[in-house]
């Protein structure tokens, strides 16, 4: 009897383990890296949070749309590889990259200093700013001095937060900052009346504002420029260079400007390196 039981147990266990291992083989030769790895598979897996409008998100019919989707598709055409969009959770993007589930992060990601160290970034491809938005009829921000007495909301790990930390006046308002998982919660908390302002990059802020019935006010002062870049695995600079070349061609052809006008109503595509 006991033998039958242990046998049954062993069978169930074996079945579970077999069930997990015989799934699809991982694509590509994992010994390769960078552009060779991508070229060998014939596809570039672009990791993106598919809930991040207007860069990459799903429209009402569940299609992936957005500025980065259009640009990445064109880059794929130039490189001669298929682009596969892989939805990821934004908080796990570094793990997605290092576990080779994706080849690059391309999703309105700001080229912050820490990311320049952790990843092989492409050149900056989009010019953006960090702005302060307040509620209409609420407290206004005319100088950074005003932030001392205001409750500030922003997204955790965002470029807006990193820019604030680098700001000279940071110490005067750092205790007022609340960090949220996404800007959606920041907006909800603004509407709930707990926050006086949010610090956000302009592209995202303007998009959100266009959807709101009670518009936020963009303050006169801002925290300066913010640039987007595409992140490849650390050390895979050849892949980043390939993407740079493709974007340069798209800018020359005017395709990049077209895409930018379509999503932002103006041309904010650039291609700039970093100050060393």
């Amino acid at each position, binding site marked *: 009897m006991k033998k039958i039981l242990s046998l049954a147990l062993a069978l169930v266990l074996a079945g579970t383990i077999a069930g997990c291992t015989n799934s699809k083989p991982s694509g590509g030769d994992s010994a390769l890296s960078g552009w060779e790895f991508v070229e060998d598979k014939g596809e570039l897996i672009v990791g993106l949070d598919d809930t991040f409008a207007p860069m990459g998100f799903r429209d009402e019919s569940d299609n992936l749309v957005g500025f980065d989707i259009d640009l990445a598709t064109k880059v794929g055409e130039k490189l001669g590889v298929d682009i596969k969009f892989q939805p990821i959770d934004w908080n796990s993007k570094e793990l997605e990259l290092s576990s080779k*589930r994706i080849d690059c992060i391309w999703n309105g990601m700001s080229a912050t200093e820490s990311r320049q160290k952790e990843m092989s970034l492409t050149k900056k491809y989009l010019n953006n700013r960090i702005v302060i938005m307040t509620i209409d009829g609420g407290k206004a921000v005319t100088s950074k001095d005003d932030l001392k007495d205001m409750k500030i909301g922003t997204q955790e790990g965002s470029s807006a937060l990193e820019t604030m930390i680098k700001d000279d006046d940071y110490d005067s308002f750092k205790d007022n900052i609340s960090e949220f998982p996404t800007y959606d919660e920041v907006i909800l908390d603004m509407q709930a009346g707990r926050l006086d302002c949010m610090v956000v990059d302009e592209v995202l802020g303007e998009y959100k504002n266009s959807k709101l019935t009670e518009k936020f006010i963009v303050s006169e002062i801002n925290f300066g420029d913010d640039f987007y870049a595409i992140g490849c695995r650390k050390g895979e600079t050849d892949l980043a260079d390939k993407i740079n070349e493709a974007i340069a061609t798209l800018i020359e052809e005017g395709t990049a400007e077209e895409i930018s006008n379509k999503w932002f109503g103006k041309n904010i595509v650039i291609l700039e390196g970093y100050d060393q």
Partner: protein
Amino acid sequence: MEQVYQFFINLFNALAAELQYAKVLMPSLMQGLIVTLKIFILTLVMSLPLGLPFALGSNSRRVIIRIPCRVYIWLFRGTPLMLQLFFFYFFLPIVTGIKLDGFTTAVFTFVLNYAAYFAEIYRGGIESIDRGQYEAAQSLGLSRTQTLFGIIIPQMIKRVLPPISNETITLVKDTALVSVIAVGELIRVARGAVNRDVKVTAFVIAAIIYLILTFVLTLLSNHLEKRFSRHEAQ
């Protein structure tokens, strides 16, 4: 009077607009619901039977069977489900090269996690059966297998139904966790719509869908409980 009238007009207009918007949201939310249901059903169908051998194993007199079963239950009940998802989704490919897709990882992790909980529920059920029944069965000349499957387990099933249905309702809501490995279930789809349209309507609809699901499950478990107690004296 005029103001009251106007208030209702505005209210109805707002409601009509919300309903119109809800109609637009429905197709993608239904896609999310299908993923949620798939994870739920696959997990339930596999973890319910898988719990039994672990329950019996953790009561086994043989150390070689008992210890692994108890360690397994301890590990899967003792760590957050979210970390288990991370482990199978990210750690496995980094260390072993086995790369399961998000959905497979989600079902696999949920089955292992819920089997551990079900095992403990079964074990509790088995231990609640009076020792005298084993002795009675033995004196009637029944073998241990016959006693277990013919007498003990049928009674156990009836006793564990309430905690099982409780766990099942928790499972419906736990499926929302798999959005951390980017599986497009209901909550993730709703979050996408909230992000896109900067309106929380999608979350409200999602909450209503979860309520409907748990309501159906409650009815189902009531029905099962009645069915299993049909031989009991009134």
